[in-house]
C-alpha cells in the first residue's frame, strides 16, 4: 500500500514538474475574459480590416502582453479617428496566451473564427514560433512586435519590429566593446528559454571580436529561477567586471537583490527583456541603479513625447518598449496596407502576398527607430541604442 502511494506520488511529481516547465507554469484559464476587446466604427460599405493580437495579459510575462495590447489599441484608435486605412476602419481583438505555446495556438484559432486578416503578435518567442507554424500554413500576414527568436519569423509571411536574438546579442557585445564598459564579462542566462540562450550564443561569438573575455557563463532554468547565489559567486570569483543578463526582468530583479546581499557590485547589462524591471512591485529601485539595457525605445527621447503623453493619459503608466513596438507595428501595417492599396474584401492569402511585398518597400520613422526598413526575411534594419537607470528612471545614453 505504502509503496503504491509513493510511486503514485512520484509519478505526480513528474507530471507536475512537467507542467511547471512551461515558461510560467500557469494554468489560469482566463483567456476569454481578459483579452477580448473590439472596437471600431464601420466604414460606408460596412467592411473593416480585422487585426488580431496575441500576447500574455496574465501570467509571468503579463507586463509585456499588457503593454503590447495597450500600444496596439492606442495606434488603432488614432488611425480610426484619422479616417482609417485606405478609407476603411480597423477592428481589433486581443487574446491572452499567458506566454504558453499551446494557449497561443488556441488564441490564434479563436481569432481566425472571429475573422482575423492580419496578426500582430505574438509577444514572447516560444508562443510566436508555435503560432508562426500555423499562420504560415494559412498564409496569414504576421508581424510580431517583440518575438525575437530567429525561428519566430521562419515563414515568409512573418515579419518583426524588434531585433532578433542574435542581433541583440551581437549589438550588446559591440556596444560594450565600443564604449569600453568592461573587458571581463560574466553571463547569467536562462538555459530553458530560447530567447535567453539565443542572445547568449551570439553575444559569446561576438565578444571575442570586441576584445571581451567571457570569464563565466552560468545557467539557470525556469524551475530554478529563485536562487542565483552559486551563479553570482562564480561570476564574482572569476573577476567579472560586467555581468550580462540576457533574461527577463523578474529573474533579474532577484539577481540584483541577491548580488547586493553578497556585496557583489559589477555593472549589470541587459537586453529588451530587462525593460519593466522598475515596475516590479515593492522592488527597491536603488538596486537597479546603474543597470544598463539595450533597448530601441526610451520614454525620455524627444520623438516619443506625444506617444508617452497619450499612453499615460489612457493607461496611467509609462509605456514599455513593448508598447512602442506594438504601436510601430500597427503603423507599419498601415503603411504596408496603403502601399499595397489593400481592401478588406481581399482573401487572407491574397492580402498576405500583397503585404509581403509592400513591407519591404516601406520606410517607417517610428518610436523604436528612425528610418526602419525590412528585408524579405522579415528582419528590421535600425540602430541599437542603450539606456541606463539613473535615480530610478531610464536615461538614454
Amino acid at each position, binding site marked *: *500500500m*505504502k*509503496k*503504491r*502511494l*509513493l510511486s*503514485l*506520488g*512520484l509519478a*505526480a*511529481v513528474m507530471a*507536475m*514538474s512537467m507542467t*511547471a516547465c512551461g515558461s*510560467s*507554469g*500557469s*494554468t*489560469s*484559464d*482566463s483567456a476569454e475574459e481578459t483579452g477580448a476587446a473590439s472596437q471600431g466604427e464601420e466604414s460606408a460599405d460596412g467592411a473593416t480590416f480585422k487585426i488580431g493580437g496575441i500576447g500574455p495579459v*496574465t*501570467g*509571468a510575462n*503579463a*507586463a509585456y502582453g499588457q503593454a503590447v495590447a495597450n500600444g496596439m489599441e492606442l495606434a488603432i484608435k488614432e488611425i480610426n479617428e484619422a479616417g482609417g486605412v485606405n478609407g476603411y476602419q480597423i477592428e481589433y481583438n486581443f487574446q491572452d496566451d499567458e506566454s504558453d505555446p499551446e494557449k497561443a495556438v488556441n488564441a490564434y484559432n479563436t481569432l481566425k473564427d472571429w475573422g482575423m486578416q492580419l496578426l500582430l503578435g505574438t509577444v514572447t518567442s516560444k508562443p510566436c514560433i508555435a503560432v508562426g507554424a500555423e499562420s504560415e500554413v494559412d498564409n496569414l500576414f504576421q508581424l510580431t512586435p517583440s518575438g525575437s527568436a530567429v525561428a519566430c519569423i521562419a515563414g515568409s509571411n512573418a515579419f518583426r519590429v524588434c531585433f532578433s536574438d542574435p542581433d541583440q546579442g551581437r549589438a550588446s557585445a559591440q556596444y560594450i566593446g565600443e564604449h569600453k564598459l568592461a573587458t571581463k564579462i560574466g553571463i547569467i542566462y536562462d*538555459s530553458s528559454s530560447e530567447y535567453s540562450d539565443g542572445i547568449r550564443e551570439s553575444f559569446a561569438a561576438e565578444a571575442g571580436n570586441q576584445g571581451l573575455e567571457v570569464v563565466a557563463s*552560468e*545557467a*539557470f*532554468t525556469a*524551475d*530554478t529561477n*529563485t*536562487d542565483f*547565489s*552559486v*551563479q553570482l*559567486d*562564480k561570476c564574482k*570569483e572569476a573577476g567579472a567586471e560586467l555581468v550580462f543578463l540576457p533574461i527577463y526582468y*523578474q*529573474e533579474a*530583479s*532577484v539577481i540584483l*537583490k541577491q548580488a547586493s*546581499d*553578497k556585496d557583489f557590485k559589477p555593472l549589470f547589462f541587459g537586453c529588451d527583456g530587462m525593460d519593466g524591471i522598475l*515596475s*516590479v*512591485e*515593492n*522592488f*527597491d529601485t536603488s538596486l537597479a541603479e546603474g543597470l544598463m539595457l539595450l533597448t530601441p525605445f526610451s520614454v525620455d527621447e524627444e520623438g516619443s513625447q506625444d506617444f508617452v503623453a497619450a499612453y499615460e493619459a489612457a493607461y496611467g503608466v509609462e509605456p514599455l518598449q513593448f508598447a512602442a513596438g506594438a504601436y510601430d507595428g500597427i503603423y507599419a501595417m498601415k503603411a504596408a496596407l496603403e502601399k499595397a492599396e489593400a481592401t478588406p474584401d481581399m482573401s487572407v492569402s491574397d492580402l498576405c502576398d500583397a503585404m509581403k511585398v509592400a513591407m519591404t518597400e516601406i520606410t517607417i520613422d517610428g518610436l523604436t527607430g528612425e528610418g526602419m526598413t525590412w528585408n524579405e526575411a522579415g528582419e528590421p534594419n535600425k540602430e541599437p541604442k542603450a539606456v541606463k537607470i539613473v535615480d530610478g528612471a531610464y536615461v538614454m545614453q
Partner: protein
Amino acid sequence: MSFLSYLINGISLGSVYAIIALGYTMVYGIAKMLNFAHGDIIMVGGFAVFTIVSTMGGSSAVGILVAVVICTVLGVTIEKVAYRPLRGASPLAVLITAIGVSYLLQNIALLVFGSNARQFTSVVNVPALKLAGGELSISGVTIVTILSCIVIMIALTAFINKTRIGQAMLAVSEDRGAATLMGINVNGTIAVTFAIGSALAAVAGVLLCSAYPSLTPYTGSMPGIKAFVAAVFGGIGSIPGAMIGGILLGIIENLAKAYISSQLSDAIVFSVLIIVLLVRPTGILGKKMNEKV
C-alpha cells in the same frame, strides 16, 4: 574557501526545503495522503505577510501571526471541504483532489493578486554572520531558518510522543479502524494535523520569501515539489528524515550547480533521488515496513 561558500548556499537552500518538507511529511505520516496543495498554502502565507507588512505597513510580528492564522484556517477548511468527503475513496482520487486544490489556490491568487512578481521585503532582521575575516557570510535568514527548523522538528517530535492528541495521531496513522474503535475521533485528529501542517506552511512561506524574495502565485509550486522530494529522500513520514532530506537536497543541488553544470543541477538532484530510492526504497530514515496482505 569557495567550496565552503557553496556549501553554505546549499545549506541555506536546503533549510528552506527542510522546513517545507516537515509539513509534507507530517500530513503524510498521519493522514497518509500527499497534500500537494502544501506548496500553495506557503504561497498564501507569503502573500498574507506581504499584504500586512508591505501594503498595509503593519509590523513583521503581526504579519507572521496573521499569516499563521490565515493558513491554519485555510488548511482546516481545505481538509474539511475537499479531503474529508473522500476519506474512504482510493488514494488516487485524494491525490488528484490535492492537485486540484493546488491549482485552485494558484488561480485564486492570480485573480486576487495578479501575475506580476513582487519583491518581498525580508521580515527577518538578523545580521549576517561573517566568518574568516568576511570572506564567508551566512545570511541572517539562513540562521533563522535552520534554527526554526531544529526547534520545529524537536517540538513536533515531543508533541507527537508526549501529548494525548499526539498519541491519538500516532494511533490514527497506525490503524485508522482500530483507532476509531478505541474511541479516538479520527476526523478531529486529522483536522488538527492539517492545522499544524498549514501553520508550518505559513512559517515556511515567510522564510522562503525572505530568503528568495520573489513572490508570485507560483512561488510555492516548485519549492513544494522539491520539498516533497526531500521528504521522500529522508523517508516520508519521518520528521528528522524531512530535515536531513531537505538539507542534503539543497547541498547536492548547489554543489552540482557549482562543480558539474548549472544547467544540469535539477537532473542531478533527481538522479540522486532515484539512486537513493533504488538502494533504500523507504528513504534515508524511513522505517522498513512489510506490506500486509
